[in-house]
């Protein structure tokens, strides 16, 4: 009987260890995109990016509402939702993947760490594998992460009509800034 108790305890503890996570999260990350060619300012900012990552496994997930993008011009924002992103049909943009070099980040030591993220980016209902480089700045229990990458609009079935070809770039520069804090 004592053996059973002992093994149970061992099993219990090992389950704990296997399931151990160190989750960092934010609900107020920002995503900025710029798809202008210099003719007109075509850029938007979303200040309600939700993102979570696990400092142990490196698993990372992010999500944002497409309608959360704000533009300097109301008509531009309407066209973005109505004609390009079809945000009633595809309300969310998501990312699900992994920080491939999470073991290089020492979360108990403040500092800047270069990271690489690999995973699936879903925009406009189209899923695509991407790899993006970024940095993580550890300060105590918060991690400020930033990344810049480029997406080709055509890859995500976002078509550019002829009349705006000189104004709208074929690819959008995307900047992500998230300040994560540790979930306790």
């Amino acid at each position, binding site marked *: 009987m004592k053996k059973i108790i002992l093994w149970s305890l061992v099993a219990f503890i090992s389950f704990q260890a296997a399931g151990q996570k160190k989750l960092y999260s934010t*609900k107020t990350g920002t995503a900025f995109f710029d798809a202008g060619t210099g003719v007109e300012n075509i850029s938007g*900012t979303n200040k309600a990016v*939700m993102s979570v990552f696990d400092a142990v496994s490196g698993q990372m997930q992010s*999500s944002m509402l497409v309608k959360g993008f704000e533009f*300097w011009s*109301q008509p531009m924002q*309407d066209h973005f939702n109505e*004609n390009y992103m079809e945000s009633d049909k595809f309300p969310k943009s998501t990312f699900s993947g992994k920080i491939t070099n999470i073991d290089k980040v020492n979360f108990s030591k403040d500092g800047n760490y270069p990271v690489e993220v690999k995973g699936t980016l879903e925009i406009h209902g189209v899923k695509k594998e991407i790899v993006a480089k970024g940095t993580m700045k550890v300060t105590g229990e918060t991690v400020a992460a930033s990344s810049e990458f480029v997406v080709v609009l055509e890859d995500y079935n976002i078509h550019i009509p002829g009349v*705006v070809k000189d104004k709208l770039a074929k690819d959008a520069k995307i900047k992500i800034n998230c300040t994560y804090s540790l979930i306790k």
Partner: protein
Amino acid sequence: MSVKISKLIYTLGLICLAQVGFAQDDLLSSIDNGDKPKEYIKNAFKSSRVINGHSIEFIGKGVLDVRILHRFGLLNSGFSNLYGLDQATMRFGFDYGVLNNLTVGIGRSTFDKEWDAFVKYRPIQQSTGGSRPSPVSVVLVSGMTASTTPGIYPERNYYTNKLAYYHEIIVGRKFNEKFSAQLSSTLVHLNIVPLSTDPNNIYALGLGARYKLSKRTAFVVDYHYILRNLGENEENNNTAGSLFSTMKNPLSIGFDIETGGHVFQLHFSNCSGMNEKAFITKTTSSWGKGEIRFGFNLSRVFTVSKPKA
């Protein structure tokens, strides 16, 4: 006793395992509590007008909408008039979005050499989620028109005789991505009418609808039903020279085409008036007799006041 303890430990272990399994699937569920924020429904119509009448759509804060409208002559006026294209009346106007829910506008029509100005306000906007979502949008419009011609009584050429007013309430809903519809009730007050038996207040019920054919094109219908005299005054409807004797219900059918900052509204219609007073009380052509005209609205928006970042 010890059996009980071991059972307890197993149970705890299972609970722990279950939690691990659950958390593995979706990290976001740990912070996303599923609350749906209040979301206002936008883009029920492509433009702030269905065709002639106001729509439940607003142009947005700090946006200037330059509108150039044309109504041509009758299609059945023959080849020598190029099916009406030789003849055109036009209105140009400027609408400005003071707030997201408040627009003011001014315009000038060649028809009756008439100025018009309006205030358009949306007290309720259709929304989902949040604490008090609304299934419909409600819009109020008030405007006035001032003709600069001598009018129907040149011998009584007073300023006030050239004024008219309109007040309108619109209730509309975007049913889905493609289909939107609205009902409106409009009161047009004419300061002067042809006969003493004519009413100064004319009421009209409006129906506007759009069906999107593609991302950038839509089919639209705009109809107003005029409430004529009933009961003892009914005879007046047919009296020669009376207000109602020539008045027809305006019906317009057309297509919206959007290209970047422009919206083109191309349509066929029996009316040539381009403000509420003109198209409700001055429509004399009849669809039944083939008295149809081609027309277009051109809308170009400029964001003149940028919100602070």
